[in-house]
């Protein structure tokens, strides 16, 4: 099976303004949603209490609300995957530092008139812990970005590094925009998903960059636009395929993996689409705008190559001389 013919070179760069515009619109919409609507912070970051209960038969959510509000006025109550399962969220000031207090037990007592109820999960996060987790999450993101920046700079050139990191921001912002727009709970799993998207999207970008680098060494072409078009076209089959296999598995996770993991799988689902898009349409045009100079880079690469060969030659001579 072949999806793309191996020889055709598509003119991606000729339409780069269209793609960048699409991205800019998405980024603006995302930022708009993030700054006006904000995030549905989960208790991991905001602190609070989450109690997941399951009734032996479907219940009316209004009834549940009525009974819970007897004790907890500001509780948020939603179904969680099925009409039998309910998620109750209490605000952070209900988090009691008293280890012995048992909120699950209290909720169970309140809901007992509604029939048999099972406490499936109780998560309590103090506000201090919440802010600590937020800080750690931010550190993880920064650490990852700096690590990637350094690695790509060493392996390629700084413009490649900057272009790929800008593409990462693109992916992260749009993914977070979707998370905000669809009111997905932001928890630790979402953070993990964002970092995974970073790694993943970069994966795609680097495969393209690697091809550009290869062509610069192999050919004498100086037309950056052409080089990019060629690199993207030649790797297109791979990019689409890997994205498809990854998309499939994340889709199964989204569909069958259950409610708890849904924020994670949703974020990944969006991220994979956005990440694939950015690797094809965004990362490379950035190289052009960053003023990437093919000739200069070729000189550098050839110099490197020459030195490597010289070293090898010397080593061979040395070894030959000794033996």
């Amino acid at each position: 099976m072949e999806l793309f013919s191996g020889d055709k070179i598509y003119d991606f760069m000729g339409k780069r303004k269209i793609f960048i515009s699409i991205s800019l619109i998405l980024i603006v919409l995302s930022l708009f949603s993030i700054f006006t609507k904000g995030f549905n912070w989960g208790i991991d970051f905001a602190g609070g209490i989450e109690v997941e209960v399951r009734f032996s038969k479907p219940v009316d959510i209004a009834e549940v609300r009525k009974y819970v509000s007897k004790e907890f006025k500001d509780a948020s109550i939603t179904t969680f995957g099925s009409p039998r399962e309910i998620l109750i969220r209490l605000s952070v000031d209900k988090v009691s530092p008293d280890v012995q207090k048992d909120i699950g037990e209290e909720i169970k007592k309140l809901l007992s008139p509604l029939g048999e109820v099972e406490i499936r999960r109780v998560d309590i996060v103090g506000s201090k812990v919440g802010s600590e987790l937020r800080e750690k999450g931010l550190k993880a993101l920064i650490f990852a970005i700096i690590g990637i920046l350094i690695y790509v700079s060493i392996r390629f050139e700084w413009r490649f590094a900057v272009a790929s990191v800008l593409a990462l921001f693109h992916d992260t912002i749009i993914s977070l925009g979707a998370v905000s727009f669809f009111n997905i709970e932001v928890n630790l799993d979402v953070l993990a998903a964002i970092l995974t998207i970073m790694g993943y999207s970069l994966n795609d970008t680097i495969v393209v960059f690697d091809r550009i680098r290869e062509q610069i060494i192999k050919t004498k072409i100086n037309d950056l636009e052409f080089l990019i078009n060629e690199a993207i076209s030649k790797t297109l089959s791979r990019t689409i395929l890997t994205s498809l296999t990854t998309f499939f598995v994340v889709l199964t996770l989204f569909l069958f993996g259950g409610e708890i993991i849904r924020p994670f799988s949703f974020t990944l689902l969006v991220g994979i689409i956005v990440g694939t898009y950015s690797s094809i349409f965004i990362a490379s045009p950035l190289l052009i705008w960053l003023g990437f100079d093919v000739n200069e880079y070729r000189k550098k690469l050839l110099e490197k190559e020459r030195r490597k060969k010289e070293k090898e030659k010397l080593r061979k001579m040395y070894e030959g001389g000794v033996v």
Partner: protein
Amino acid sequence: MMKKHKTKLNYRLVIFILATIFGIAFTIPSFLGKNPKVNLGLDLQGGMYLVLGVKGDEAVKNKIKSIASTIKYISEKKELFIDNLKIGKDKFSFELIDKDDTKKMDEELKKFKGIKVTKKIKNQSVIYTVSLTKKAIEQTKEDALKQAIQTIRSRLDAYGLAEPSVTQQGKDKIVVELPGIKTEEEKRNIKKLISSAAHLELYLVDDEHKVTTPAEAKKYGDILLPDKNNPKRMWLLKTPPVLDGSMITDASVGFTQKTNQPAIFFTLNSQGAAIFADVTGKNVGKRLAIVVDNKVYSAPVIQERIGGGSGQITVGSPQEAHILAIALRSGSLPAPVVLLEQRSVGASLGADSIKKSMIALISGFIIVVIFMAWYYNLAGIIADIALITNLFLIIAIMAIFGATLTLPGMAGIVLTVGMAVDANVIINERIRELIREGKPIRQAIEGGYKNAMSAILDANITTLIAAIALFAYGTGTIKGFAITITIGILASMLTAILGTHGIWQFLLDRGFKITPKHFGMKV
């Protein structure tokens, strides 16, 4: 008969086969429930995860209190008269009545380590202020944390729970992980067990005064403490306490002889026994209050001198007696603990999560396997074989290192299934390209692997960087995700690059006729 070829040993295939055998061999125990096996995280098997904060300031306060009372004791013994002993949160002060005793007092104070002393002369007397040095404060807090961990650990061991884990987190936190807690009641008991300070004190009851406020009580050198069964009833008790829990050597559960009430019988060490006998002997007819964690459990009238160093505390239920006895036996917490974070998952939810993520894993796996075979023909099937080995390797490596598989970890494995074939996709595309250029198959395969290498390496290393960031700063179950992703990436380098290459070499060496069709190309 096999044809003989003059080829080098196919080391790639040998390594791949060894890796596969290794992977299968160390995966099987996990499914049979034998060691070495993958540990299931609390979110998958059910259980409770607690983060407790240790109030180090309280430990410092106690230390100050204990130094102050020692100095009081010494000054009485050595006839250095002091007055106005004031104990604060992090320092205490007193007035040395006679200025001429300064030298002697300084000598005594020098015996204490880690204290800072300031003096101020006031007429004939000297006002001393004593506080802990910065280092001593740190040390006290650290000791309190260490001791709290020790105490909680021994309490949980005594309760007989399977594999509890108590570890330090940061400078002032304790993480308690309790897998396999089944019932709500068990959960409640254990939380109680962990957090009880279990500070036992025996006080003499002050029957002479009638006071209603703590300030008033202080005037007589007393304190007011509530009754355990009736929190409104307050007891007026003489300070300092006669005895405290540090002198307990054993505590057991039983029933009182006369009333058949559940009770804890405790035994004191020789020093405690001597004091207990002495005090009861001197105070026959008075009440002795038994106080645990600042609540008066009972205050029986002393009938006679109690020798032998044992006593009893009556409690409400045998259950309560059991927990309190364990807590008393394992010693008291040096500082109070507070709940910072709790995650408890019922066993049924854990089982559901396993089921759901397994369904996702299996269906995702089947889709990828079929997709690869459809798109790449034989090359796809070879990639699928590598993928299967990859899955075995992930589980095997986790089992060997005793890593914990969490729900995000499961998600990581599912994700790996999608991403691990990436290397093969890159390689196969490269091979196709070379075939299109008209290279002979063997050269195309070798060239394909060579050309694909730098892209695969760079791509995987950047994903690893993100995974390491997650591992370094992630907490709890998220670490599980970082672990499976990392192992998956590393294992995929072995299986997807080395393994498949070895299989191709094997096929070529055996004279198997490979055509572009085997790479899913239209002929």
